[in-house]
């Protein structure tokens, strides 16, 4: 029976980010939130392994109280329990803090054989929390994993590296970070959505933590990455297409 923990993050949907005027300031006033893209793969992988091998899946997230909305979504994807560690100050954690908080919460509250994280979060894409967490817990880890096989107390993982596949083995308990190519996350059905509302959630707050986790990184600025473009739109009429070709000629980019 495999006890699996999956770590997921509730993030701003980057498609909703607007830039206010020429100042390059980010306008986050109308953004929606989502479960970080690759964490959906992480949850799916945890649930698939559990379906194959039996055992349990617990989803853990650290975030501000508003991240509570994520729990229903996460639980509708299959985990049977969620642990929600929240504090108003947790809306801008840096990876060192997140990993340290996760390490304390997991050590004190959960048993595990396997921890699954995403390759990187959609907002920070630091790719740090997974390996940092493994280091804090003193367990082996494999990053960029595309395939997981578990035999007895051993994990075999295929890592997708730039120059090819590397297959590694390690004893459990272990941590892996998964690539989006590892699976296609299921779309929760109505019954799964309704079922999620009834699943248990363990709520923890900063007060329940022993450590005081100060940030090691300080953000000194956050500005939109802008791009000056002409943004001229044309229809698919042949005359319009000719205009585009003329423009490309004039720009000197085709010859």
């Amino acid at each position, binding site marked *: 029976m495999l006890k699996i923990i999956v770590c997921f993050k509730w993030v701003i949907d980057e498609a909703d980010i*607007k830039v206010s005027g020429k100042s390059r300031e980010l306008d986050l006033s*109308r953004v*929606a939130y989502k479960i970080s893209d690759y964490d959906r793969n992480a949850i799916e992988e945890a649930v698939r392994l559990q379906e194959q091998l039996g055992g349990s899946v617990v989803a853990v997230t650290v975030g501000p109280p508003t991240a509570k909305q994520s729990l229903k979504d996460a639980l509708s994807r299959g985990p049977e329990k969620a642990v929600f560690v929240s504090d108003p100050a947790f809306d801008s954690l840096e990876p060192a803090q997140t990993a340290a908080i996760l390490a304390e919460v997991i050590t004190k509250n959960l048993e595990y054989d396997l921890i699954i994280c995403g390759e990187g979060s959609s907002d920070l894409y630091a790719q740090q929390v997974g390996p940092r967490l493994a280091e804090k817990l003193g367990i082996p880890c494999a990053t960029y994993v595309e395939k997981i096989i578990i035999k007895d107390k051993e994990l075999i993982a295929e890592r997708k590296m730039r120059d090819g596949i590397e297959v590694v083995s390690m004893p459990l308990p272990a941590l892996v970070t998964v690539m989006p190519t590892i699976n296609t996350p299921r*779309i929760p059905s*109505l019954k799964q*959505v*309704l079922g999620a509302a009834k699943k248990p959630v363990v709520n923890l707050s900063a007060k329940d933590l022993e450590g005081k986790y100060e940030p090691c990184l300080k953000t000194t600025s956050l500005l939109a990455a802008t791009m000056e473009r002409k943004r001229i739109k044309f229809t698919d009429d042949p005359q319009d297409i000719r205009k585009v070709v003329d423009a490309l000629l004039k720009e000197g980019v085709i010859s």
Partner: protein
Amino acid sequence: MSDDKFTAIVIGGGPSGSTAAYVLAKEGLDVLLIEKGDTSGSKNMFGGRMYSHALNRIIPGFWEEAPVERAVTKEIITFLTEDKSVSVICQNDNWAKEPYHSFTLLRAEFDRWLASKAEEAGAIVATSIKVDDLIIENNKVVGIKAGEDEMYADVIIAADGVNSLMAQKAGLRKDLEPKQVATGIKQIIKLSKEKINDRFQVTDSYGVAQLFVGHCTKGLHGGGFLYTNKDTISIGLVINISALRHNTIRLVDLLEDFKNHPSIAPIIEDGEVEEYSAHLVPEAGINMKPQLIGEGFLVVGDAAGFVLNLGFLVRGMDFAIASGEAAAKAVIEAKKSNDFSKSALLAYERYLKQSFVMQHLEIYRKAPHFLENERLYGKYPALAANLLTKMFTVDGGQPRRLFGTAMNEIKMSGLSLAKLAMDGWKGMRSL
């Protein structure tokens, strides 16, 4: 509540559905609200302004917490010719005092908020789920199908908007005819708060609702609208589909022309298009009202055709909200006797009749027919604009008496006085 049975299932998390779910949940009933979008409102659009009265009765002082943009204090109606315009402006700052008369707002945020109110009140909200079908047993609607899943309820409320497949599946309505729907297109244009305040001469929280008749639709049955939000402008056109069918004009081009009109271009200058959307509007008023009640089944909001479309003005949010409330009240009553038959649900019609919903639709019953008159969108706006430009033009020539000028313009426009009088009379009776 047993595992897969609710008292009510509401299909669609727009304003009508969320309101129904909210009212039911407040009363302690088991209610499930199903919305196909990622979040309620994520794909919904409308012109831009909601009258407050309906929601204020259900959630008093809702503006304290709801994501509204600006309180409308200035109403403008503008008649357009190709290059001229005449506007009637009505400003009333009392409209921005409690209970605020109307607000501009953006649906993605507003609908999300209203659905969250229903959830807070105890409704179970399932998003990203599309209802595919109804489960009908012995002529009674008993549940819904979504993908592989079936879910049962004493009563199902169809709040799935203008194209309501659910009302069709329940056999309460037929496909819409082109004449019965208009299509609306809209852009949201980003403009700084300061520029909006400057150009429309309003302060931060005050806003403008401007409606256009005439050349913006190239004489077709429909109109233009412009609403000011906090730091964006909603601008668009609504055009009857049958009018559009007989023309080769494309809506997108019409909107571009509209934006380039000399009366519009300067007020949206430097604005960046942030979003583009299109949506249908039920147009035929009370005449297209489907049957509203079936065995275990109610139809609300746009699905029921509860929209007042006067060509230049579309009003549906307050009808959606009030009809959602009326349906919920009928279900609450039905629950008391545990009878959800068609006859028990007739209370819905009663509540509608008592409310402004039926009263207002009744008053405007003749409007759709009157509004089919093409003169309203071509000749009359031109007449008004030409008349007034003549009146204001001083060029050293012989001044003309206003009456003479008017008669002359009428003659030039090719309208007979009898027709004009007829249209005037009809308009007064139907609008």
